[in-house]
């Protein structure tokens, strides 16, 4: 662990969380990623990522790692949206999230939106490894441009493994640096916010979710494995959150 490094090539920083049934033996923020233990929600240890407002800038390499050990329950949120901003020399920024959830453990990963500001270039990778009995509630939202602004370039990859087998693998790429057609009728159709809500749990093994439309521009689908995914696009962040919150509420009350 080299600690926070500030240099011409941008910030290098990794924040780490380890949750056990008893507590949070590791809670280490670094650089732009500060972590706060916040008021617990029921049986969940709760951690809030704060101070991420100005990161990542072009050239930065930042990462968050969370490990939820067997039997533990962890709820992670963030105090504000993350805004990808351009760096001085147009370099790409990298943001890696690595999440591990053990047997009979649960992770609720519910951060605020990722906003791709004009001129920014961010590659975000999320890798999630779930034990066979693990539960996950995971939300991600991409907003293209601040209010009335052109989008930056944003590429994300979400890879989820359960019991060592691939459960979900998705790449999204938007903005001026993406391949053509990203704003056309197959991909975003002019929408400026896109998001996903992934729920994984053993209860879906015998009772997969029924596919259903959530309005015109969102859908709830069962994955091939024991999980459901809500896929949504919307004109803006507020309308997107509305759709995902409805799905989250109906899931959390039925489980």
């Amino acid at each position: 662990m080299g600690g926070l490094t500030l240099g011409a090539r941008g910030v290098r920083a990794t924040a780490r969380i380890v949750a056990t049934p008893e507590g949070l033996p590791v809670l280490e923020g670094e650089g732009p990623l500060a972590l706060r233990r916040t008021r617990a929600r029921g049986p969940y240890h709760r951690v809030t990522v704060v101070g991420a407002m100005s990161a990542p800038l072009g050239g930065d390499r930042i990462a968050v790692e969370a490990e939820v050990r067997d039997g533990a329950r962890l709820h992670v949120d963030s105090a504000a949206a993350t805004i990808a901003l351009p760096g001085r020399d147009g370099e790409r920024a990298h943001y890696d999230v690595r999440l591990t959830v053990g047997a009979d453990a649960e992770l609720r990963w519910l951060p605020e939106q990722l906003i791709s500001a004009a001129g920014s270039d961010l590659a975000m990778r999320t890798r999630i490894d779930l034990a066979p009995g693990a539960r996950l509630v995971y939300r991600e939202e991409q907003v293209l441009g601040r209010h009335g602004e052109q989008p930056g370039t944003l590429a994300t990859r979400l890879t989820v493994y359960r019991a060592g087998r691939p459960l979900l693998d998705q790449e999204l790429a938007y903005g001026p640096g993406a391949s053509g057609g990203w704003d056309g009728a197959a991909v975003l159709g002019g929408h400026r916010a896109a998001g996903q809500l992934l729920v994984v749990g053993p209860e879906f093994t015998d009772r997969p979710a029924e596919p259903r439309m959530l309005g015109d521009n969102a859908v709830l689908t069962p994955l091939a494995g024991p999980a459901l995914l809500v896929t949504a696009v919307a004109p803006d962040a507020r309308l997107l959150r509305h759709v995902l919150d409805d799905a989250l509420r109906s899931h959390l009350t039925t489980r």
Partner: protein
Amino acid sequence: MSRAALLVLADGRFPAGGHAHSGGAEAAVKAGRIRTAADLAEFCRGRLHTAGLTAAALAAAAAAGLDPLLLDEAADARTPSPALRATARKLGRQMMRAARATWPSAELDALAAARPRGAHQPVVLGLAARAASLGPEDAAHCVAYEAVSGPATAVVRLLGLDPFDATGVLARLAPELDAVARRAAVAAAEAVVEGAAVLPAASAPLLDVMAEAHAAWPVRLFAS
């Protein structure tokens, strides 16, 4: 490789059932998102660089000799829509019948036995290409072209679009089709060393959303 075998496999008249599918174009037309040849071009371009690239890489990897069952699992993880998984397996089953009759091979037989209800179509197409002594990039070309030719043909019927305009859309996409096929083949070569996880997983939210809406329509012109 035989260039003629590539033409046989890529021919729209190859009896593998693809003509009944619009690749999401029917739903996009109904939603008012495709009205003109320019809209069709953007739709096709977006599909090519997302679902098209992902499928082309799966086909290239199968043609390169990766385990088709691992690729089938990778295809499931890359297809969150159950309607699109069902379509891919149905088309895979039809492709399997046509391919086994055309280029009999032990590898096709083994996959048919392991996935009697159909494997994902690009995986079957990749194995068919392999049985026809075609290479990974050939398989990727077939799949990339299918990703755009299906919607273009469908929109001629759905909108009464001038067939010359639709063909013009496809012709202007040719350099991007070549680039996607090349990228898919390079990814497949990496996957031979590092495993299927390194294959592209490019996806398109509206295709996934609209596929479920379309599957629920009581009456439709195309199966997907």
